[in-house]
C-alpha cells in the first residue's frame, strides 16, 4: 500500500513515518505541506527549530535524509489546493494519505488518493466532532480516545470509521500533558488503521453524524474546570 503523509511540520511527519515504516507492505512518502500561507523562510525557520528541539535529533535527521535519498520526501511550495500541489499529489499515485497538516481539505485534495485521506481525531466519533474534544469528553465524563476515519470536506463528518481506540488520560498532571500524550498516540493509531485497511476485506464502521455533536474551543472557565478534574485524579 502506497501511503502519503501530509505533514504541516517535518517533526510530525517523521514521527508518523517512523511509526509505519516497519509495517510490511507499506511504502511511505512524506509530503511537507505549506500551511497558513507562511513564506518559505519563516516556514523553514520554524521547521528547523521544532526539529532540533525534539528528542533523538540525529536519529530523526538520518531518517529524514534516508527518505530524501530514496525519493520519498516531497516539499510542496504552494498550498494544498493549488493546481501544482494537486498535480504533484496525484503524481505520487498513493492509495491513502495520512493527515498531519492542520488544514481542512477540499475535495480536489481528497480525490488525489485512491481510498482518501485518513485523520486520527483525538476524540471518539460520532459523539465528539470538532475542537477541544478531549477536554469536552473529560468534562462530560465520557471516554477519551482516538478515532481514525476517512475525512470529507466537513468537520469530522467523514462517513467511514477505520478504528476507534479508547485512551485513558488518568495520571497526567495537566490538560496540556494529557493532550500531548493523546497527540503522540496518533502515529500508533495510524499504523493500526493501515493494518485494518490492508486486511483482505476490511470492515469499516459508519460515522453516524446525527448521533453526535460538534464541539468548539472551550472557554477559559471550563478549561480550568477540566484542569481541576485532571488534578483530582492524578
Amino acid at each position, binding site marked *: 500500500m502506497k501511503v502519503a503523509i501530509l505533514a504541516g511540520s517535518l517533526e510530525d511527519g517523521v514521527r508518523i513515518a517512523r511509526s509505519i515504516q516497519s509495517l510490511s507492505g507499506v511504502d511511505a512518502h512524506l509530503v511537507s505541506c505549506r500551511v497558513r500561507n507562511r513564506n518559505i523562510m519563516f516556514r523553514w525557520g520554524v521547521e528547523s527549530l521544532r526539529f532540533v528541539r525534539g528528542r533523538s535529533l540525529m536519529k530523526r535527521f538520518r531518517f529524514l535524509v534516508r527518505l530524501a535519498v530514496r525519493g520519498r520526501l516531497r516539499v510542496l511550495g504552494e498550498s494544498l489546493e493549488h493546481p501544482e500541489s494537486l498535480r504533484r499529489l496525484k503524481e505520487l499515485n498513493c492509495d491513502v494519505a495520512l493527515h498531519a497538516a492542520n488544514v481542512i481539505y477540499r475535495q480536489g485534495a481528497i480525490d488525489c488518493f485512491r481510498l482518501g485521506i485518513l485523520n486520527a481525531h483525538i476524540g471518539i466519533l460520532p459523539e465528539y466532532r470538532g475542537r477541544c474534544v478531549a477536554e*469536552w469528553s*473529560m*468534562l*462530560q*465524563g*465520557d*471516554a477519551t480516545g482516538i478515532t481514525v476515519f476517512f475525512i470529507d470536506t466537513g468537520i469530522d463528518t467523514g462517513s467511514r470509521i477505520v478504528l476507534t481506540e479508547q485512551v*485513558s*488520560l*488518568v495520571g497526567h498532571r495537566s490538560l496540556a500533558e494529557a493532550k500531548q500524550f493523546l497527540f503522540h498516540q496518533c502515529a500508533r493509531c495510524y499504523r493500526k488503521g493501515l493494518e485494518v485497511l490492508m486486511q483482505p476485506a476490511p470492515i469499516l464502521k459508519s460515522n453516524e453524524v446525527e448521533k453526535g*455533536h*460538534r*464541539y*468548539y*474551543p*472551550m*472557554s*477559559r*472557565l*471550563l478549561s*480550568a*474546570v477540566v484542569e*481541576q*478534574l*485532571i488534578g*483530582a*485524579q492524578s
Partner: protein
Amino acid sequence: MELSQSAGQPNRHKVIEIAFSARYEELCANWGATLLPEGYGAAAQFVGRIGKKLKLDAGSTLPLLLAQDAFPVSGWLFSPYNCFHNLRSIVLGETLCTQICPPPPPLEPTYFRKLSRSERIYTLCERYTCPLNIAATGEIAFAEELLTELMVHDRRGFEKKCFASLDHDELFLKLNLIALVTFRLRSLRFMDAMNYFYEFLPSRWSPAGKNAWLLPSWMCLYASLLANWSQE
C-alpha cells in the same frame, strides 16, 4: 480508573457549579456597577433596571428567569408584540402575551447563510417575534447553526480583536437567542459559547449597533444561567 468513576458525576457537576457561581459574582462585580444607562438612549430605562438586577445585594442572587416549561414543545408561540419588545420582557421577568399556534416551515441554514447583514437581523426578528420559539423542538437544528456561526465566524473576529468588522446587533441578538436555548437545553456546549464571548469582551465596552441594549440584555440572561446552573 476513568475520570467519570473517580470524580463521579455529582462531583463533576459540583465543580462546574462552583466555577459558574464564581463567574456570576465576577460578572456582577464587573458589569453591575459599570452599566451606565445614559449611553443607551431610548433603552436607558431598560438598561438601568438590568444594572440594578446585576448589582449584588448581600446574599441575594438573580433568580432563574425561565423555567424549562416556559418554552413551546411542539407548537409555536404567537405574540402581537415584536421580537425586541418580547426579549426585553423576558429579561425583566415579565409575563409574555402569547398564544399557541402551528409552527412555520423550518428556516434552512443554507438560506440564512446567504442573506446580507441587514436581512439576517430582519429574518431573525421576524421569525422569532416571540424569542422563546428559538428553543422549540423543531428549531434546535437552526439553533445549532447559530451556535456554529458564533463559535466559528464571530469568534474569529473577536479573537483578532476586530470588533468593528462584526455586526454588533446581529452578534448580540444571536447571543441572546443562544442564551434562551441554554435555558431550555441546559447544554454545556451552548453555555460555553457565552463563557467564551464573555471572556473576550473588553470591560466597560459597549457595542456600536443601533440596539446596543442587546449586550446588557444578554448579560442578564447569562448571569441568570450562571447563578442557577444545575444539570441535575
